[in-house]
């Protein structure tokens, strides 16, 4: 098995529901807590496994805002694992999930240097490295309903922008999506072979930004103005 996520950049609305639900689930999970530093102070900061950044793609008028969630890609050739001197970082043979053994980590930061995707964050309070666990403590939990045996971020996403599945199975939901929508890996030239894939926005025809003035629009404008008064 090669478990991972597909993230649909076409429908992600950047609401941060996944990042918050990730934090909520994992802070009491196997690599928790996800410590916050001065959460009510002037510069609140802390550990997150999943972060969203926002980009403008293309130039006006052919531009688009894209919301970009990023968590661990559970890379096939994960240098974060091979550089770790203590053996705290490991990749599971059975499903490809990359984890950090909190009892072995010495907090040297070296693995975070080796990760191109910013997926690893040191917990300054615990002194150990933390990262996305692909919700390993959820996806195999027999006490949950089968539908709930998915990562917290995937279930939470209100736009269904996140999909979880097995990339080794050619007919899995994730592989089908990647095939149909032309999914991409990020920074493939570094050779990490990330498992997670990103679906690009669907092509749309651009609507002209300005409406032509017509009789109807003039009447509408006049009505709007008088209502506003």
């Amino acid at each position, binding site marked *: 098995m090669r478990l991972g996520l597909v993230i649909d950049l076409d429908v992600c609305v950047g609401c941060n529901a996944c990042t918050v639900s990730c934090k909520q689930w994992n802070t009491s999970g196997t690599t928790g807590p996800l410590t916050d530093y001065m959460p009510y102070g*002037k*510069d*609140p*900061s802390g*550990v*997150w496994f999943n*972060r*969203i*950044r*926002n*980009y*403008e*793609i*293309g*130039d006006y008028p052919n531009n688009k*805002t*894209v919301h*970009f969630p*990023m968590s661990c890609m559970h890379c096939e050739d994960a*240098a974060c694992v*091979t*550089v*770790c*001197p*203590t*053996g*705290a970082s490991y990749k599971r043979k059975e499903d490809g999930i990359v984890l950090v053994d909190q*009892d*072995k*980590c*010495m*907090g*040297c*930061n*070296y693995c*975070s*240097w*080796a*990760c*191109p*995707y*910013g997926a690893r*964050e*040191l917990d*300054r309070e*615990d*002194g*150990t490295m933390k990262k996305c666990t692909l919700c390993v403590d959820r996806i195999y939990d027999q006490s949950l309903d089968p539908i709930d045996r998915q990562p917290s971020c995937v279930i939470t996403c209100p736009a269904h922008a996140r999909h979880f599945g097995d990339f080794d199975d050619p007919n899995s939901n994730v592989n089908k999506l990647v095939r149909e929508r032309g999914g*991409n*890996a*990020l*920074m*493939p*030239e*570094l*050779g990490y072979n990330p498992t997670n894939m*990103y679906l*690009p926005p669907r092509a749309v025809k651009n609507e002209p930004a300005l409406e032509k003035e017509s009789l109807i629009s003039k009447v509408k404008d006049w009505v709007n103005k008088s209502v506003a008064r």
Partner: protein
Amino acid sequence: MHPAISVIFFTVVSGAGYGLMALVTLSMLFKIDGGLDHDQVLVSGTLAMILITIGLMSSSLHLANPKNAWRSMSRFRTSWLSREAVLAVSFYPMAALWLLQWYLDSSMSNVVTLVLTFLLFAGSIAVNFATGMLYASLKTIPQWNTSLVPANYIMLGLMLGSLLLTLLRLYYGLPIDQMLIINIGLIATAGILKIMYYFWIGKPHGPSINTATAFTRATVRLFDVGHTSGTFLTDEFGYQVARFKILLLRWVVYLAAFLIPGTLLAYNLEFDSLMVLLVLAFIGVFVERWLFFAEARHVVTLYHGNQRV
């Protein structure tokens, strides 16, 4: 990259310690300027081990969870950091045995001493090589991902070590004719390698924001970085220095580490003036190491809005 003082101190001071050990063993193997006598070997070998130990202790300050540091020797098959730890730790029993030999009035005609001398020489080069490889093996930092990095680490360690040995010889009133030639040769080689390095990193040649986001056929601009104050990622990788400051500091490196010591060594030196040159060279190498970190750009900064690394 954030230039952590503990790591800078470690690489410079331990590097010089291993360099001194390399030069001491070399001068015994080849009787450079007649070699050293027992007491002098003991003193200079112990000095090297003190420098190495101070440096290693400083490097442990960089760990957030040092109680697990003993585990760091377990993954030497894949990790250069682990290899560095294994090499650095196995250096101690070898050095102790070797110093004991000299204490017990050994000489270079003793086979055990000869073999140990050779092993220590190879070991001291190997540790500095491993330190360099620890950085050079990271594909995520294009400015480090070059074989010039381990070469720089080895040469700068040897350079400082050779200056230290010349100083010790002056202190004991021993001849330094051959040592001076070695000094100047090492300074020149280290300086040329450093200039090559600065040329190599001159132009961005790593991934871009386009490959990082997989939008390779359009411009990509950061809109919102998604956090309101610093994160681990911005603290660790977001360090930026003004171009002007970099160029200024590079001249400090050229002058303090290479040009001034290299030129003035050609004049007949007293102990005091060589001491000043040595301090100057150390300052130069400290600045060099600070720049090594400050100038390195991690690919994760692409996600924070950098167009190129």
